Structures are given as C-alpha cells and as structure tokens.
C-alpha cells in the first residue's frame, strides 16, 4: 500500500521555520512567541561543564541525505520526497571512509537520513564499511523496504553485512503510528518487520540486531524505556509475532517540523516548560554530543544531528568540513549548546541510542 503523506516539508510549504535562523530565534524567545526559559548553557555551566567538551569520537554519524519516502509530522530533518538534491555524493562518502579508517576511536558508523537507503551509493558504502570491522548502524524507516521491489532484498543485504538495523515505530497500534508518520505506514512497517525477522533479525542467537525507536506521538515526554520496551515486546509478539532487541526512547526536540507542530497546536510553552522542569543533571556526563560527530550530506561537521538541522556547525571553524577534518581540534572543541538541548536532558535523558540514565 502506498503511504499518504502527513505533510510536506517546511521548505516546500514555504514555512518560515524552514529557516534555521528563525527556529533559533523562536527557541531563544525573540520571535513569534515571547516565552523565555532559563539558558541551557548556564544550567550546564553551573554543573561544572564550562565548556561542555567531548570524551572522544566513538560514533561517526552520517546523514547521507534528506531524501525520504515519508514526510513524518515530527521530523527534525524536514526530510521528504522533495529533497532529491540534498544527498551525499560518492566523493564525500569516500572521504568518510578515509576518516573512519584512520580514526581508531570510532567504534560505530551510524548511517541516517532521510531514508539512507535511497542514496544511490548506500549499498556500496555499507559494503566498504563492512570491511573496516566497525559496527554499522542503519536508521531505517521500515517502509522503504516494501516501497519498491528494488528495496525488497534490503533485509538480506543488511544481514549479509551484519548491519544493526534501528527503526522507528512510535507505537504498536495503527492509529498512533499513522498519525505521526502517514496513513499506511503502520501496515507497511509491520510487513517490513516480519521480513527482517524472517532473515534472523531480532531472533535469539543470530547476532542480527533489530532495535526500535519510540518517539512520543505528541507534546509529551517518553516514559520509562524499560517499561515501554516491555509493552512493545509483549504487544508486537502477541499481535504480530514480531520480535526485536531493544527499544530506544527518544524525546522529540523542539526544532523543525516538531517545533512547527508545537507552535501550531499551542503546546510550545507548556512543552518547553516540561523539558526545563525535567532537567536532569545526571544526564549531562552521558550526552551523545560528547562521543559523537555528526556529518551532513554536504560534508559539514556538527556536534549532533540536531545542531546539524539547526545549521550550528562545530567550533573551531577550521575543522568544519570532512575536507579539513582535524581530530585533535575536534577532540578539544567546546560543544555548542542552545535551548533545544533541554530535550536531551529531560527525565531519563535522550540520545540516538535512547535514554541516557
């Protein structure tokens, strides 16, 4: 079944939030809404992280393109079918391989998008990576697998290269999932999960890891990861005979399409207040920006995927691109913080690997 998209990209709609400058203005209480919240940077500074610094680059996360077959209502990338021109070139992927090979501290290569599999060089890149011995993670939206016959063999391809598949599934029912990701997404996701299970993903003893990502389907924070994982495992097994390894709970950060949703629905101030009130100092030492570097489709470097989407490039300026990658400078950089960072420190914390504490 084809997917009925929830929306169009902010860029396509001509929405002013397509401008990262406007998003930062909103977050800092200078535009659209006057609500002001304590400075995140001051909170972190008060804890003795002045500045917040990296612990070393262990995760090399690459957004290999904003092109996607879905246009989810909460997408922080503002990805979608219209973003055909923002896809990483083979030259940049080759540069990534060179850096990954020369940087022993990198343990995991985390490939994301968009739908990363829609990049025409995706399979070649994974094949090259599999020879490096690094852990490979692919953030797969599931529906891409059943969207077109040319993607039907992705489960076998992933298994052959021992790729850790991390897939979004915001809930174990159709209505909640489709409300966030588009009509038809839930049914296609279930089909794709069954195909992944069929080649051994999520099955005990295969070593083929299938993890799911839970994002709240509205203006509320995720609950306990352990508790939600238990519910997801029970329900998916009972209803569809689907198995998986871990559930990652990820808080929606107030940027891009989710920021637009918060403003349009009148939830922005309450949501920000909830993030601020739930600030948990214990999450700060384990923030993902401390052991990750995020690379954009055009080769620029960021402290995390969210800073990437706000176009806040790393400091210092001389190492902002793959072509000028300076490991020593990156390891001693100051991580750039802003108000959206409250999303990673609320409650149990949030990262691309789920809860922090």
């Amino acid at each position, binding site marked *: 079944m084809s997917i009925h998209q929830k929306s169009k990209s902010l860029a396509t709609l001509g929405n002013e939030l397509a401008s990262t400058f406007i998003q930062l203005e909103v977050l800092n209480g200078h535009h659209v809404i006057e609500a002001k919240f304590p400075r995140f940077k001051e909170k972190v500074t008060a804890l003795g992280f002045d500045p917040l610094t990296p612990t070393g680059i262990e995760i090399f996360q690459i957004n290999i393109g904003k092109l996607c077959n879905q246009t989810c209502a909460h997408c922080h990338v503002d990805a979608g079918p219209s973003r055909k021109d923002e896809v990483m070139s083979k030259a940049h992927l080759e540069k990534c391989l060179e850096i990954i090979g020369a940087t022993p501290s990198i343990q995991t290569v985390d490939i994301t998008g968009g739908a990363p599999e829609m990049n025409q060089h995706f399979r070649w890149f994974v094949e090259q990576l599999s020879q490096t011995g690094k852990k490979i993670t692919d953030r797969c939206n599931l529906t891409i697998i059943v969207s077109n016959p040319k993607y039907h063999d992705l489960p076998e391809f992933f298994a052959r290269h021992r790729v850790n598949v991390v897939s979004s599934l915001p*809930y174990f*029912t159709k*209505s*909640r999932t489709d409300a966030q990701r588009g009509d038809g997404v839930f049914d296609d996701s279930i089909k794709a999960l069954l195909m992944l299970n069929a080649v051994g993903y999520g099955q005990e003893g295969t070593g083929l890891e299938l993890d799911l990502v839970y994002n*709240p389907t*509205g203006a*509320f*924070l*995720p*609950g*306990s990861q352990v*508790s*939600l994982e238990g*519910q997801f495992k029970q329900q998916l097994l009972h209803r569809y005979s689907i198995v998986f390894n871990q559930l990652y709970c990820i808080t929606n950060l107030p940027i891009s399409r989710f920021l637009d949703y918060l403003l349009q629905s009148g939830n922005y101030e309450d949501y920000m207040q909830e993030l601020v009130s739930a600030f948990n100092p214990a999450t700060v030492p384990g923030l993902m920006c401390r052991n990750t570097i995020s690379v954009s489709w055009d080769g620029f470097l960021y402290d995390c995927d969210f800073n990437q989407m706000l176009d806040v490039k790393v400091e210092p300026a001389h190492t902002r691109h793959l072509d000028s990658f300076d490991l020593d400078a990156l390891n001693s950089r100051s991580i750039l913080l802003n108000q959206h960072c409250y999303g990673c420190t609320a409650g149990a914390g949030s990262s691309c690997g789920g809860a922090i504490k």
Partner: protein
Amino acid sequence: MTKENYFSKDELKRFGTITEFQETMGNKFFDWYGEVMKEGALTVREKALIALAVAHATQCPYCIDAYSSACLKHGADEEQMMEAVHVAAAIRAGTSLVYSVQMMDHVKKLSM
C-alpha cells in the same frame, strides 16, 4: 487575592506550595505520593490509568490533565484511557444503583 475562576491551570504548577501552611504534613504527603506512584507490583502505566479513572470519579480537572499526560507518557493509548474512565463511571453508577436494593426493601416493607 481575587481571581476570575475557581480553577486555573497555574494552580496545579503551585501544588508544591501547600507546605507553606503545614510543612510537615505537606512533605509527608508528597513523599508518600511519590512512593505510591513508583513502579511496583503495578506498573506506572497501570497506576496512571487508575489515577485517571479516579480523577474522573472525583471530577478533578487538575488530575484529569495531569494523568491524561501521564497515561500518554507511560504508553497507554486512547482506547485504554477511555475504558479506564468507563470503569470509573460504571462503579459510580453501580454505587447509586446498589442503593436501590435499600429502596426496594423499604418500599416492600411499607407496601401491602
């Protein structure tokens, strides 16, 4: 201090200030409340659903907002939440109806 409405969302945010007039009892209440709502023999999701049902039975607007949010946060869906409210409503209705046995007994006693 005057205000236009008896209920205001802002009052819930200031719930913690009840210790201002009775600190010891207030603190004991909040400690106990926190302990009650932790994961235990019942999950936090089950407790949130119970709290949501009770909120409807006691018709507390603060609790309805707070536990609708808590139910969503802990993974309950709309169907479960509405069923919980129906449980509260059914028990309330049953509480009224069961007294009709007393009414019937009394009527029968007085009637020929």
